[in-house]
């Protein structure tokens, strides 16, 4: 017996996963130290998608930042647009018209649905559930059709403006949306049947990477991952922005904070978001979508061509940029992964002095070593899916 154990190689083995690995969608490197299949130590290296977002922002005008925000969480770009615009409006101290608020809520929720659909689709795919992937990517595709109708682009939306929006809702948008939602709901029910009680899926995700609520808070978890631990924190409820206080929706919470709860929370949030969009369509009032302040919101092209004062404001806002008063603010919205915060500092000039994004998945990715120690190497895949680390947002 002792002879056999002598020949066993019991040294720890170091294995590198990534930065370009099929399951690490988003470029990230895991340096795992393994004892057999068990993870003894895990190091996460990020930054492979770093583009210098904050440095670029400091060298453009406030308005020129909006296209960059599309590329933060590129799965739900409209929420980033809305979050940034709200932050700059808070810095200036303006309030947008009612109709604009409703349209922003509709846009944010459509984006949130897309994000959760993508997350669950990719998560299922990596555990072998290819049909669930196809169903949810179809659902996402028809919602992208709506977003294309709304702003002309499917992914890089660039739709929201400081003090308003690029354009109003297109004709028949409500009817088209309700039609699409019927299809989305039926696809949702299909995936629910395929995954929620699927033995193979449950075995891979249940009781894996569970986090107790106090530890999740200490690690700075927000969004679905925090709510799956049983902490009902959602910025839309805690500090309602836009018109979320007028919407009737629930915040789903989990019990154990494992990967299966994260999946269930996201599934329920999809249905809640569908209902928020429908409520917004019922309540939306007619009226303007832009603030009537030519020094902050661009004039319509018609006015620019026909009125000298509008032309002057147009040149001022395009060339010099809008000029928020000096000061600093922090403004947070509920992104698809959690609290998306913007910390802005203005020195009173046309360029941002400092823009800092608080990306929700940054804190989640930082907790990967804590969640993975003592688990099998195969558990990295579902955990990393349910964390939903988005390279563009995490690395900026």
């Amino acid at each position, binding site marked *: 017996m002792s002879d056999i154990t002598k020949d066993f190689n019991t040294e720890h083995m170091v294995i590198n996963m990534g930065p370009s690995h099929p399951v690490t969608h988003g470029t990230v490197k895991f340096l795992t130290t393994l004892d057999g299949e068990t993870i003894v130590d895990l190091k996460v290296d990020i930054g492979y998608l770093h583009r210098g977002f*904050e440095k670029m922002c400091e060298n453009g005008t406030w308005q020129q930042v909006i296209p960059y925000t599309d590329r933060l969480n590129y799965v739900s770009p409209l929420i980033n647009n809305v979050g940034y615009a709200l932050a700059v409006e808070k810095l200036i101290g303006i309030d947008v018209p009612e109709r604009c608020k409703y349209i922003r809520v509709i846009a944010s929720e459509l984006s949130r649905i897309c994000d959760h659909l993508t997350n669950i689709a990719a998560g299922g795919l990596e555990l072998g559930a290819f049909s669930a992937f196809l169903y949810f990517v179809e659902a996402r595709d028809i919602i992208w059709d709506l977003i294309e109708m709304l702003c002309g682009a499917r992914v890089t939306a660039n739709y929201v403006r400081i003090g308003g929006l690029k354009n109003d809702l297109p004709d028949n948008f409500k009817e088209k949306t309700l039609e699409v939602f019927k299809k989305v709901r039926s696809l949702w029910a299909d995936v629910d049947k395929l995954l929620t009680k699927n033995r193979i899926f449950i075995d891979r995700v249940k009781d894996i990477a569970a986090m107790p609520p106090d530890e999740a808070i*200490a*690690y700075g978890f*927000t969004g679905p991952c925090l709510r799956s631990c049983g902490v009902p924190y959602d910025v839309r409820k805690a500090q309602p922005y836009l018109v979320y206080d007028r919407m009737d929706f629930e915040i789903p919470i989990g019990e154990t904070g494992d990967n299966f709860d994260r999946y269930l929370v996201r599934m329920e949030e999809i249905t809640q978001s569908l209902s928020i969009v429908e409520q917004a369509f019922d309540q939306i009032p007619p009226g303007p979508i832009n603030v009537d302040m030519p020094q902050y919101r661009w004039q319509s092209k018609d006015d620019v061509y026909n009125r000298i004062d509008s032309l002057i404001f147009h040149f001022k806002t395009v060339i010099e940029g809008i000029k928020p008063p000096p000061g600093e*603010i*922090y403004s947070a919205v509920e992104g698809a992964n959690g609290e998306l*915060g913007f910390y802005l500092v203005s020195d009173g000039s046309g360029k941002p002095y400092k823009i800092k994004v608080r990306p929700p998945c940054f804190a989640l990715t*930082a907790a990967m070593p804590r969640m993975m120690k003592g688990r099998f190497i195969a558990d990295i895949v579902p955990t990393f899916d349910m964390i939903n680390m988005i390279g563009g947002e995490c690395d900026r």
Partner: protein
Amino acid sequence: MEASVTLKKLKERFPGSILETHSHRGDDTAVVKKEDILKICTFLRDDESLLYNFMMDVTAVDYIGKEPRFEVVYHLYSLRYNRRFRVKAGVPESDCSIDSIVSIWVSANWFEREAFDMYGIQFKGHPELRRILLYEGFEGHPLRKDYPIKKRQPLIGPMN
């Protein structure tokens, strides 16, 4: 009224450490001495009427030409009382360091590494202070205002 509870408490408890306060646009902010950051953060987390249990964000701002040159900015959130709070501490260029708050909120770990990476501020007592978004071998700290936007970096090969 509700929002200023934290500021009032802090001023009572640490009259000598609070240099300045403001509530611009409703964001309560305290500028504190950097030597006392650990004491103040522990108080903010543990006091029964404050309980700032979320450390949302750590970043820095480079006010070049002013003294102190850098400001480290902490954003806190209290789940119990649904309040946000901002703590700032000035860090001069000559002594570019501040105590790490990882021992108070573990979530500060990566955020402090990012601030070190981008601004070169040393966080004393940080368990693993190395670059996070940029690579080992990157020269300089790109978010400093005196770092030119078009500066080129030397190409480096793989580490081993």
